[in-house]
């Protein structure tokens, strides 16, 4: 063992805390530079400390490896903490992406990128992660298409999609009769070439 001072079960606990997937005894042994028998003993000790009801975390054996999980008793508190909608102010990229999805839905990532003139991967994933947009199938060309969610309507105080404000007052050429989608794509292409 290389981290000489620390008992092996402490190091194992730290490793399981950091790992996103279950870790096998062999992998633990290699990382700790210890034998598998030593790791087994450490796992036993740890399992005793982290058995249900003893602490907030429990040691579990799943899928051929070891992992830490939260005690089921904490579930409702976890839901209250984590299921709260996150609503920091939207960045320019997020607001643009969201407005495209809101007004054109369903709309695909490539279309969003063409209209904005830049790849919009990170704005799309943030909006998706925050539950403002969701996947709603695939386009003719096989690309995932997006639409807004009921959470979106709630956070924007909208009674429905038909309550979205008319963009006319912000429209530089409101007299243009063409369809909104076509106009946005055209403007995006022009921006891309300048």
């Amino acid at each position, binding site marked *: 063992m290389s981290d000489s001072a620390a008992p092996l079960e402490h190091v194992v606990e730290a490793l399981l805390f950091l790992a*996103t997937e279950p870790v096998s005894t062999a992998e633990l042994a290699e990382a700790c530079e210890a034998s598998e028998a030593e790791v087994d003993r450490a796992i036993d000790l740890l399992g005793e400390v982290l058995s249900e009801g003893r602490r907030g975390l429990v040691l579990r054996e799943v899928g051929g490896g070891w992992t830490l999980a939260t005690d089921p008793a904490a579930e409702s508190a976890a839901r209250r903490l984590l299921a*709260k909608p996150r609503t920091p102010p*939207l960045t320019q990229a997020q607001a643009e992406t969201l*407005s495209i999805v809101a*007004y054109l839905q369903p709309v695909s990532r490539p279309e969003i990128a063409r209209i904005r003139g830049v790849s919009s991967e990170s704005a799309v994933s943030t909006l998706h992660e925050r539950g403002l947009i969701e996947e709603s199938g695939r386009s003719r060309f096989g690309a995932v298409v997006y639409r807004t969610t009921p*959470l979106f309507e709630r*956070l*924007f105080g*909208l009674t429905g999609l038909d309550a979205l404000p008319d963009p006319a007052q912000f429209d530089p050429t409101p007299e243009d009769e063409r369809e909104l989608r076509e106009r946005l794509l055209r403007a995006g292409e022009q921006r891309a070439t300048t």
Partner: protein
Amino acid sequence: MQASDLDLDLDAFSGPFDLLLALVLREELSLAEVALGEIVVAYVEHLDREGDLDLEAATEFLVLIASLLELKSRLLLPAPEEDDEPLLGPEEAADELLARMLEYRRYRAAAGHLAELFGTGRRYLYRSAPPPPELRRASLDAARHVYEPASLAEALGGLLRTPPRPDTSHIRPTVSLERRLGVLRELLRRGSAFDFDDAFGSEDRLTQAVTIFALLEMHKRGEATWEQDETFGPIRVTAR
């Protein structure tokens, strides 16, 4: 390489650049005796050998050499006339310099403190695994009206706008000293002499000016010389 490590072999001094700086600052070596041009040449030659340009080091060098030049110009030029535009008196100059040094010192010391914190802090590792999705899903009940719908219409309006084509008329082709040096050397390789007007008379003024600079540089390095018998007469450039 840091600019301070640059090895110098000048008439008045031989050794690393930072030692030269130290001697000048301690006034053990008079700047009047040091040919700053030679330092620049040594640095440019060093860059040539090195091949790639370390921006940080080059910047450091420029700052150092610029301050030396400023110092030397003050040494060499006569003190300004009384009624000239008011330059900072020695007292004000010292105060200003002091204020700047103190400000920098403060953040340099704070930087040391931060680096220490970082040394300790980076030994702690944090979990980055996201919580299970079923715990994460935002609940509709907890959602409140926080965003203004008009912001969406506004963002969309912005996307309908097409930018005017940028005006590029002010952009002029750049002329590099390095390239002009190349052109001159090539001309001198082909014949041992040429007439400046014949070779460059049809170029624009900027190119002509930079070419003259390049000639000055070559003259200094002993690569070429030139003569002009009368003002505005033809200029004859000869390889040496």
